[in-house]
């Protein structure tokens, strides 16, 4: 017989694994994510009461859904819903025992609907991120606040407002179709990538929940890829995240400073994630059309495939940046990276003339990577004094003390 500690641990784990599905099923029935969340919590409380006594059910999710649906039809809840919803609720909750296979069949659709609702374009990106992590990631408000270096009341407010905004906008709990799908999907992908990048920006010594955001984004991306397997950009985003995440062990030196891609110890790259990333890219490319995520993943894959920095296929990377510039036109950051790739193929002078053309781009004003990139090419051309000037300019613009120190150290090294 399992001890009560073991059962409590199981319930906590089941909650983390199943809460999104449970909320998704309940949101379809109630058409109200806030109410769905409350009902899901009630079912959790019931599990905490019953499982230690009755044992862990064969299908924890089916048990939770059954209990939550039963509660959904109690009188208090009924009052809060429209008649139309009633009928649906009555029909859905009619069977007291859930058919596990039937549940399996529609749970994916429910989850997909919930993802689209949480990432609805009517919400600001910040609100979408908070709601997604809360409903789909099962993170508490307190955890989201810690992950985003924000105050808990501010996040709680953001989530409450987001739910209200969804209700007020009368957002349909449906998977978008046709032309609508593309725009809605790109809103979802944007949210997942924002979560990933927030985790990727974590520094040494940060709370463990920050780098864990990368794993959460990866998990969400993989789930989405399973739900809409015909969308190349979803596989592209998954590939991009898997490949970027594979490099995290090599990204910081023992002192906690950022190590640039070409200087990283590739033996520390995570081969399992690289393999998964390349496989996801393969799935994306097999589907045909190539958007921003697929092309960025393809660029990332060129680095992943090179066992040493010197083996990098720069000609291919230049071609891919050309393609990326088509799907992300007038993006100065893309152009900057393209110029650096051109420098690797046609020499530093070719890259520098590209960078000079970007000098006045408003989006790059205050972007320290531009003078840093120029410095790199000027140094290669032997124009040391100009390179040092650019490094000092970059240092003045750098956001972190570590970047500033690295740039100034490089200038000192050149001057020596």
């Amino acid at each position, binding site marked *: 017989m399992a001890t009560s500690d073991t059962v409590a641990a*199981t319930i906590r784990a089941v909650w983390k*694994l199943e809460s999104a599905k449970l909320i998704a099923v309940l949101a379809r029935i109630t058409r109200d994510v806030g109410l769905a969340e409350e009902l899901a919590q009630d079912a959790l409380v019931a599990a905490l009461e019953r499982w230690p006594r009755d044992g862990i059910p064969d299908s924890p999710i089916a048990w939770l859904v059954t209990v939550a649906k039963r509660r959904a039809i109690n009188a208090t809840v009924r009052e809060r819903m429209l008649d139309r919803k009633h009928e649906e609720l009555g029909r859905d909750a009619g069977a007291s025992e859930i058919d596990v296979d039937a549940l399996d069949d529609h749970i994916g659709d429910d989850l997909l609907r919930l993802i689209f609702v949480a990432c609805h374009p009517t919400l600001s990106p910040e609100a979408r991120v908070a709601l997604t992590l809360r409903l789909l990631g099962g993170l508490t408000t307190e955890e989201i606040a810690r992950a985003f270096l924000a105050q808990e009341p501010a996040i709680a407010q953001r989530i409450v407002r987001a739910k209200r905004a969804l209700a007020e906008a009368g957002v349909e709990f449906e998977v978008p179709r046709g032309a609508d799908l593309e725009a809605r999907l790109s809103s979802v992908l944007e949210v997942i990538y924002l979560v990933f990048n927030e985790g990727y920006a974590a*520094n040494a010594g940060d709370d463990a929940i920050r*780098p864990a955001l990368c794993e959460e984004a990866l998990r969400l991306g*993989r*789930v989405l890829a*399973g739900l809409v397997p015909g969308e190349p950009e979803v596989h592209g985003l998954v590939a991009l995240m898997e490949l970027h995440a594979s490099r995290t062990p090599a990204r910081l030196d*023992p*002192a906690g400073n950022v190590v640039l891609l070409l200087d990283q110890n590739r033996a520390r790259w995570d081969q399992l994630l690289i393999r998964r990333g390349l496989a996801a890219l393969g799935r994306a490319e097999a589907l045909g059309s190539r958007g921003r995520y697929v092309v960025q993943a393809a660029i990332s894959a060129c680095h992943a495939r090179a066992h040493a920095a010197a083996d990098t296929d720069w000609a291919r990377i230049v071609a891919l940046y050309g393609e990326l510039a088509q799907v992300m036109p007038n993006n100065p950051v893309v152009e900057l990276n393209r110029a650096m790739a051109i420098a690797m193929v046609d020499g530093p002078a070719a890259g520098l003339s590209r960078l000079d053309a970007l000098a006045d781009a408003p989006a790059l004003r205050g972007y320290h990577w531009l003078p840093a990139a120029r410095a790199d090419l000027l140094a290669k051309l032997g124009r040391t004094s100009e390179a040092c000037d650019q490094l000092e300019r970059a240092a003045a613009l750098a956001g972190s003390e570590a970047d500033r120190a690295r740039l100034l150290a490089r200038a000192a090294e050149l001057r020596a």
Partner: protein
Amino acid sequence: MRFLLTYHSSAPGDLSPEKSAALQKLVEDNMKAGILLDTGGILPGVKVAQKNGEFAVTDGPFTETKELVVGYAIVQVRDREEAIEHARRFMKIAGDGAGEIRQLAGPLDVPPHH
């Protein structure tokens, strides 16, 4: 967090078609859930050791071992409790046996303090 789950059984390969189908579904579900990164079977092997600079290979089978490591799974989960829950679900289908759950030094674990 990344964990390595191993499964040790005295009756490897003794799977009914029903068990086998249920395990296949479990693997598919966990792949789709973004949790299962890799999984596979483990066949008997040899033991290697080095003592006083001397490298030695011992052929199997290891008759002293009743239970052989027959399979593994690498999962990405949020904590150890979740990894344990996956082992519970697996064994519920696979049957009696033993296992080990070890955290791997995954790529996204907290950067160490310096």
